[in-house]
């Protein structure tokens, strides 16, 4: 059951990511990215991170991707133009990415005996465990991030507002 869920949602993740790469219209890429993020939320649940699964759905698939689709529709973005200025990306990029993924897969699979096996419900981090660390040990970084968000909002408004 656990393996079936992992293969199902892991495959959905990879399929969505490949669809992001292959689609030419940005709105299709944005919708397939929502599929990737929602499947990642299920994988977080399988790894016992229940708060992060909820936050993934709310923050990523909810807030950030709504912002992306809003900007795509606001700018009326059409299909991607094919330009010829990027041959280097194809020549160097695709073999480089293939080397990267095979190297990382080799390292992780050769270290497989040292790594644990994941079972459902073996290790569940509840929201209270997470908040104990976040609000007691890491209170200062948490408050600093709220200032970061405030500055980001001000910057976004200043950048996107029309100049007179």
């Amino acid at each position, binding site marked *: 059951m656990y393996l079936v869920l992992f293969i199902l949602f892991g495959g959905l993740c990879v399929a969505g990511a490949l669809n992001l790469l292959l689609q030419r219209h940005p709105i299709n890429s944005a919708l397939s990215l929502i599929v990737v993020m929602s499947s990642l939320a299920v994988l977080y649940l399988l790894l016992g991170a229940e708060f992060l699964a909820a936050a993934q759905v709310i923050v990523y698939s909810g807030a950030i991707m709504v912002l992306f689709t809003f900007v795509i529709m606001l700018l009326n973005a059409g299909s991607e*133009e094919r330009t010829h200025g990027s041959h280097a990306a194809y020549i160097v990029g695709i073999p480089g990415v293939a080397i990267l993924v095979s190297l990382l897969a080799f390292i992780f699979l050769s270290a497989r005996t040292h790594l644990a096996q994941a079972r459902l419900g073996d290790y569940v981090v509840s929201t209270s465990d997470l908040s104990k660390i976040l609000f007691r040990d890491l209170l200062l970084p948490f408050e600093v991030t709220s200032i970061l968000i405030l500055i980001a909002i001000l910057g976004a408004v200043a950048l996107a507002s029309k100049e007179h």
Partner: protein
Amino acid sequence: MVVPIAYYLVLSAILFSIGVGAFLIKRNIITVFMSIELMLNAVNLSFVAFAYQWHRVQGQIFVFFVMVVAAAEAAVGLAIIIAIFRARSTLNVDQVNLMKL
């Protein structure tokens, strides 16, 4: 049935590599930005997998902070994209090659 943590790490590596490939190949600035989000998500998955491996909550705290910074980055980045579109009326990254018009 069990799943080795290594499989989660391999899945994270595959997603990260697809993100790198999309970043290099895509020409639309919004899609390039979306592939950066995909890379951030892939790294988050490996953080959660390592938090499971060592039974530490701190790995999940890292993911929480990455989510916060990604939200701020998305807001500012999309505002920059809107400003670029106002100035150039194009979203193609090959045509955005001058600092000042």
